């Protein structure tokens, strides 16, 4: 019986947040667009292959067709210079872009939360040293760290666990995919710093608050305090910040692709498609517009969703 009441109480925190989120029209818009986008990039490519015969790297055998055509009924987003259907490439690129966003954020979440919580929990001199290390890494341009990580562990030096992950998805000897998996980790390893600060700040402010004292006074056990009182309160900002990390990582990937360091052919991401499109902007504007707008719409929705989640989940900033 006691177990049961606890469960109901625990659920109401999230149900409350969910109710508040649904009231926020912009956040709902973001959520709907994201769900639609995820379904589209998952089921889109196989449907397109079965109905029209287009894949992301399908080049028509007819030499007349190997040029960039503007959008038409057959190719809703037009074709690229090699005659490949841009819609198929944007869908395929969406898989990579969304995966970069989500997996890199998970990596940064794992590193950042454990680092920040450890620093705040141990406190004192260890906390001081750990946070100065964060300050120093902040001062190194992240682009340098990414380039070094990509070149140290790229090519033949790719760690075998990354390679076997890539092989699970893309077949044996798939170096292009291994490179993309490496990118997930490189981006994750440069975006955990703010997360560590957020978590540390949360744990620091929470561990001395009255409600923790009250809980201790009424005899709640230490794990009980941590999991029933501290974690739910710290989780809000973490989820919110994670939602906002996804678009920022996707932007960073696009920037790296623009510099020629990100996703390489034959794979594509929205960033690499858009940066290819930039080169031909005056002649074939659709090559930039479709990947660019798709990416901007996705980031737009993710940002609105992140904002909405902050209002719904973070009681501290939910004032207005």
């Amino acid at each position, binding site marked *: 019986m006691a177990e049961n009441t606890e469960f109901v109480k625990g659920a109401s925190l999230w149900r409350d947040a969910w109710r508040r989120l649904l009231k926020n029209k912009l956040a709902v818009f973001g959520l709907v667009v994201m769900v639609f986008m995820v379904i589209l990039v998952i089921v889109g490519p196989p449907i397109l292959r079965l109905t029209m015969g287009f894949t992301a790297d399908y080049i028509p055998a007819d030499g007349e067709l190997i040029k960039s055509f503007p959008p038409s009924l057959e190719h809703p987003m037009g074709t690229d210079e090699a005659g490949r259907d841009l819609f198929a490439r944007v869908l395929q690129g969406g898989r990579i872009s969304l995966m970069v966003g989500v997996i890199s954020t998970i990596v940064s979440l794992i590193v950042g939360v454990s680092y920040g919580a450890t620093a705040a929990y141990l406190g004192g001199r260890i906390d001081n040293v750990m946070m100065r290390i964060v300050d120093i890494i902040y001062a*190194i341009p992240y*682009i340098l760290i990414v380039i*070094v990580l990509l070149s*140290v562990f790229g090519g033949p030096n790719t760690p075998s666990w990354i390679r076997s992950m890539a092989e699970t998805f893309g077949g044996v000897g798939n170096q292009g995919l291994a490179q993309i998996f490496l990118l997930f980790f490189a981006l994750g390893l440069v975006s955990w710093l703010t997360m560590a600060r957020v978590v540390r700040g949360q744990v620091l402010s929470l561990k001395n608050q009255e409600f923790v004292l009250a809980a201790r006074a009424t005899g709640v056990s230490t794990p009980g305090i941590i999991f029933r009182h501290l974690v739910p309160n710290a989780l809000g900002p973490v989820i919110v910040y994670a939602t906002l990390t996804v*678009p920022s990582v996707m932007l960073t990937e696009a920037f790296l692709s623009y510099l020629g360091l990100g996703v390489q052919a034959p794979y594509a991401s929205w960033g690499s498609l858009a940066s290819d499109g930039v080169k031909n*902007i005056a002649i074939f504007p659709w090559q930039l517009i479709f990947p*660019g707008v798709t990416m*901007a719409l996705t980031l737009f929705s993710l940002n609105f969703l992140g904002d909405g989640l902050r209002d719904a989940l973070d009681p501290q900033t939910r*004032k207005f």
Partner: protein
Amino acid sequence: MLNFIIRRLLIIIPMALLVVTLTWTLVRIAPGNFYSTERKLPPAVEANIKKKYGLDRPWYEQYGIMMWNIVRLDFGDSVRYQGQSVNEIIRRHLPYSATIGLLAYLVALVVGLAAGIIAALKQNSFWDYGSMALAMLGLSVPNFVLGPILVLAFALGLYIFPPARWGGPLSLVLPVVTLSAIYAAYIARLTRAGMLEVMRSDYIRTARAKGLDETTVLLKHGLRGGIIPVVSFTGPALAALLAGTVVVERVFSIPGLGNIFIQSVLNRDEPLILGIVAFLSILIMIFNLIVDISYGFLDPRIRYE
């Protein structure tokens, strides 16, 4: 206060040296080097190159020599751009990045503050939603997409501004607008949140209660507290702007420092990398110090011991 400033200034030196050390380690861990090309060099040539740049010595000696040079602010010569010192390269390319960076931040500050204040004062109105949606758009469009679109519309379409190159104030408009978009968006959001919080605080009620007119309450009392998040954002943003103008430099063919830095990393031009990293990290820390000092002027409740 003076004590605080001196202490913070002194701590910049070891911090910058640590940053340089870490960067040096990163560059050394990475495989490859500045002299290797597609073709393998004859062993004698390679040995001579190593000797010339002191690469034949043990790593701790190389590290010691590097640190000693940096302490004396002598970053040496670029190994890629023959015969040019790192200091010279930075001095030559920094003005371009600094000009568009500072202008872009000024534009972002004016636009962002105005939009943020209006949004906060007319909360939940058309102006609030409109400016926040625009800000969100600014955060969502990559600048390498925004830049070319602006060029297409205003340079190649309407012939108002030159599409690229450096020369004359008109040529600055498109790069500055491109660069400032994301910062204006950030500042607008920070200002709105900060103002909303401050305008509900007790000291604003006190200011109104003693009969000050709304403009004074808003500008003298509200804004000072409300822009504190913007001030915190300014330090890192300015530093990023001075170096992080790579995309804009490439889109508009501007010979700035950002592109030089990316090239130096790709070329493994160690002296140039270390020089730029040392320069930027000191700049970041000085900006952060100025930001911390200015808190005290903005919010009298903040004191430094």
